[in-house]
């Protein structure tokens, strides 16, 4: 088995064209794709733009008057009443909210227009607005009463949208930040430390920020997709070399040596594993060095990536074993090479190596998740975001299962004497 393994590696190594393709093609493709698409995805402000409607039903002057009456009816000292009212007038809930949206930094990715409720509904329905925010009548009075007098409040700002989206999450985030700021201002005011310069913290547009969850980037997607696809092509390349061995009768010579078919097959499998593994390691290493696609990742991430690459390479090796058996069984060698290319391309497409599968029918997405590259891609994208090693257990098992299954089928389909 060792002789076959060494020979296969040596034959591959001497094929300079194949070596150049295997080593540099994935790196070049990833760099090109990254450069080509970087303009499209690099600017956060451009990645999400939100059209927002603001339905202002509340009248803050009337609200302040209502609040003043409430304060007046309180049995507290006149000085205290005056202090509360001065503080309430300083806050100006509605002005703060509209002013907040006019902030130049936020205005880069959020366009706000004041509309009536009816107009807002219509525009959201027509998808001209992503959502609208409604500030209900009596909002100022309610907010001030709750914050400064400790009254119970059931009223709040509501967000209305046609469907849940990344944009909507970002808007929710904006409102949430705003309300926190108002509350903080009121609290500070009660302690006598209200400062006009206290500004709400602006959320970052372009990314959906979830606690403890990192997002994945398009360069990361390309790196995973292209590297898995190119590794799959190693299985095809090795199988094509089997076809050459068969055509040039070298395989006959191997049969005549009484070598067990299992040794021959395992030579192919092991050499494919090594080549795919080296190729992927080089690709990830070089891309990380040149583009820094995985910045600030922990040791856990790199361990997980190493495991996934190793098991994926094993799955590719299994596929190579299967291809080898098929190559020896099929009489028309040209057809065999064509079939292998088609299978790899099909895996590439179904597994999402060419393009994300999100837009495709559910059935295709589910099938794609069972391809070795699909399993790897889905698992790694999830792993980039959560970095939990336990999330890799099932994908790693699936890849191992794929390898074992391919190897069993390869052994059973390996041609018997007289069929080659």
């Amino acid at each position: 088995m060792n002789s076959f393994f060494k020979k296969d590696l040596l034959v591959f190594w001497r094929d300079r064209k194949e070596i150049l393709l295997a080593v540099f093609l994935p790196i070049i493709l990833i760099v090109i794709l990254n450069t080509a698409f970087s303009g499209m995805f690099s600017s956060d402000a451009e990645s999400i733009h939100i059209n927002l409607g603001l339905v202002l039903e509340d009248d803050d002057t009337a609200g302040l008057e209502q609040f003043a009456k409430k304060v007046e009816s309180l049995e507290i000292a006149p000085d205290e009443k005056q202090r509360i009212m001065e503080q309430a007038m300083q806050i100006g809930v509605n002005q703060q909210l509209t002013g907040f949206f006019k902030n130049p930094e936020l205005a880069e990715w959020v366009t706000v227009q004041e509309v009536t409720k009816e107009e807002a509904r219509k525009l959201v329905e027509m998808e001209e607005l992503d959502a609208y925010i409604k500030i209900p009548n009596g909002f100022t009075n309610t907010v001030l009463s709750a914050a400064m007098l400790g009254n119970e409040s059931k009223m709040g700002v509501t967000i209305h949208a046609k469907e849940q989206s990344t944009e909507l999450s970002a808007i929710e985030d904006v409102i949430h930040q705003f309300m926190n700021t108002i509350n903080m201002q009121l609290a500070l005011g009660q302690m006598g430390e209200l400062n006009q310069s206290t500004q709400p913290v602006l959320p970052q547009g372009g990314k959906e920020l979830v606690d403890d969850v990192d997002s994945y980037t398009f360069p990361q997607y390309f790196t995973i997709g292209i590297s898995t696809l190119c590794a799959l092509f190693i299985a095809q390349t090795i199988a094509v070399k089997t076809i050459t061995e068969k055509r040039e009768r070298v395989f006959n010579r191997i049969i005549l040596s009484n070598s067990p078919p299992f040794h021959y097959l395992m030579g192919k499998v092991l050499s494919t594993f090594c080549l795919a593994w080296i190729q992927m390691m080089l690709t990830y290493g070089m891309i990380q060095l040149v583009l820094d696609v995985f910045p600030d990742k922990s040791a856990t991430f790199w361990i997980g990536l190493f495991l996934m690459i190793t098991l994926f390479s094993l799955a590719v090796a299994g596929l190579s074993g299967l291809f080898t058996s098929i190559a020896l069984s099929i009489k028309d060698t040209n057809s065999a090479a064509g079939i292998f290319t088609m299978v790899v391309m099909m895996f590439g497409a179904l597994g999402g190596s060419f393009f994300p599968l999100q837009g495709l029918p559910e059935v295709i997405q589910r099938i794609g998740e069972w391809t070795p590259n699909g399993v790897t891609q889905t698992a790694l994208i999830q792993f980039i975001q959560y970095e939990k090693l336990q999330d890799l257990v099932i994908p790693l098992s699936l890849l191992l299962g794929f390898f074992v299954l391919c190897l069993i089928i390869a052994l059973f389909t390996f041609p018997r004497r007289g069929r080659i």
Partner: protein
Amino acid sequence: MLETVKLSKVFKEKKAVDEINLYLGKGESVGLLGPNGAGKSTTISMISSLIKPTSGDVKLEGKSTIKDPSEIRKVLGVVPQEIALYEELSAYENLKFFGKIYQVEKGKLEERIQEMLELVGLKDRQKHLVKTFSGGMKRRINIAAAMMHRPKVLILDEPTVGIDPQSRNHILQTVRKLNEEQGTTILYTSHYMEEVEHLCDRVYIMDHGKVVASGTKSELLSILSSEDRIQIHVSRKSPELIGKIQHMEHVRRLDETNDGIHIIVKKGRNILSELVHAAEKEGVQIINYQVEIPSLEDVFLHLTGKTLRD
């Protein structure tokens, strides 16, 4: 040592090999002659266990090898028509790989590689990749690879096809050396009659999947003992003269060649005066008249009605 008994192979109702019986004695050098499509390669593939016969048997030392071919594979070295080598590997690497899979002892592998390279005269080119070799050099390494495990029987399937005369001579010398000095039994197939005449003790002639004749050279030549072969060169081509010769009483066969006419007549019949007379009448001059000693090529032509290159 090795024999085939009524060995047959049918491919999709076409009989490629039809009940042939061959015998190779220990240390013998046996030729297998036949035109393209005669069934030589199929016969070799069956003997070497690469394909299963439809019927019949291949026996090694009297023991059938059909069910368990592992024994025959141990004693057999096969040199295929194709260059069955890894072109991306050097001569040395090829021999090392084949030596290893033929389970040549680790301690003796290096010695054996050098011995084989010496035998085929490529010791100084051992580190060069096979793809940089000439056709003749590739064929020499092809033989060396088949000899790595010291086979008792060496089967060579047209090992000199498409190579220069120098390489051809080298291969013939190598085969002769293997047979005479190392006692290797040889089964040699070729299109080239002179190679078989030069190398082989006995010859089997195959046509349409059957053995049409076999024996030593002299035994085969005796088939033609009832005939004389005459070659004449004439001043110009004349269909009328050809017609007249064909109708002569003792003429059995006539073939037009590039430079004259080849005539087969009954043994001992002199047709010279008749020929001169007929040529004079047609105004044709006979430039040369030659009675030929028959060769195996003539035997082949006699038996199959065609030349080996047909």
